């Protein structure tokens, strides 16, 4: 069941260290805590992600799930992809190459977004 509102896209800051992550969390917390929030974090500007940033993503996911919402990630640069894979956090999130696909995925499953990923079985 959808909330009826449009997904909210939040552009993450270039640096996601402890201070920046904390500030960003406080900025987005009210959105995440709303009922059935649909949120996309756009990583396109992110150049630096550390453990505090990953921890912040988990906190955001925990918050959004309390209200039966969902949080998706988009446009993640290679370095951040490695960090997310290294920590095993990548599989917690739906991740899309671009923000448009991520937004669209709240209304229907974008199978075409997975067609070129070379999914192995």
């Amino acid at each position: 069941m959808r909330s009826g509102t449009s997904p909210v896209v939040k552009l993450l800051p270039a640096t996601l260290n402890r201070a920046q992550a904390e500030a960003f969390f406080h900025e987005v917390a009210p959105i995440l805590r709303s009922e059935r929030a649909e949120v996309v974090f756009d990583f396109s500007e992110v150049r630096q992600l550390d453990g505090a940033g990953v921890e912040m993503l988990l906190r955001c996911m925990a918050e959004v799930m309390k209200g039966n919402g969902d949080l998706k990630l988009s446009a993640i640069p290679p370095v951040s992809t490695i960090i997310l894979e290294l920590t095993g956090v990548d599989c917690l999130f739906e991740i899309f190459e671009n923000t448009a696909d991520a937004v669209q995925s709240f209304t229907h499953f974008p199978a075409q977004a997975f067609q070129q990923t070379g999914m192995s079985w």
Partner: protein
Amino acid sequence: MLVSAIVAVAEPSSGVEGGEEHLPVMGATPSGGPLACAEILGQPVVERMIQRLQRSTVVKNISLVTPDGIPAPAKSALRRRITRLGGSRLVLEPMSRWVLSDALKQQAQGGTDKLLLIRLGAYVEFDLDDLLQFHIESGGPVTRVHDHEGPLDMWMIDVGSACSSAGFGRLAIGDLGSGIPYLSKGYVNRLKDARDLRRLVVDAFLGRCAIAPGGRERKPGVWIEESARVHRSARIVAPAYIGGATKVQASALITRFSSVEHHCEVGAGTAVKGSTILPYTRLGKSLCVARSLVDGNRLTHLGRNISVEVADPNLLRRTAPAEPAQTKVPLFAAWRMRASEAISGSLNFSEGEL
């Protein structure tokens, strides 16, 4: 013209191919049942085939021949499911009492003109009307369905010609040969091994074949059967399927292209990634099951080409009627732990440094 169909579920082959000596026998689940009888996104291939034939206006009678070597629980489950499909057109026969020659004779006596014989096997999407039209126009006694990789175990047989042919008394499926080849352009998955079964699941999620996951699409790409129970702290990442009466416990993670079939349990904090969990399987707590096909306590790892039987029932086991109490685990506790283990406070990459 009376058209009938016989669907015979092939016994898994005991041979191994392609150097994958560690994988289970061809066409079998890890516990030895035919892959065609394994539940895939809520329904076995054999049931999907029967339904496809029942929906057609062409086929008037359907016989299902069940294999003898299938494990007893799987056999009774299949029988229940197929019986539920119902219809006076459907007859079940055990393989041990089935002979193609006798079946053809019975079909002839019942007035059948054309017989569609399917040995499952493969998951095949085909145009029955087109096949029948081709068979009639070609004028041959036997037409065999092919795809671009070669022949499939599907034949359209002219019953009158077959009954009058020489050597009829010894006729077996193998004797049908190639007949006149009919090229089917529909989706085909030969279901030779666990990898094929996983490919079918992925293809279904991606809409590459006509299989639609069962249950309700609770959110885009996440199908959950009504009777499934998913803890609110568990996370399901699309595309994924959760079968009926399955329990997903606290902080568990079912992620991308995974299917957990009916009557399974996924323990607290356990992650299922790109895997299929067959019915009546319990995964213990805090496990990571990736790129695998799990059937009870048997796991086939597709990345490592190996199939193992796990003796510890705390890790994997077939589900028992008694249900263990759910364990309370803080939200994402396991993932936080893994994240903090993997990333030390000083680890800090930036694009400029790499």
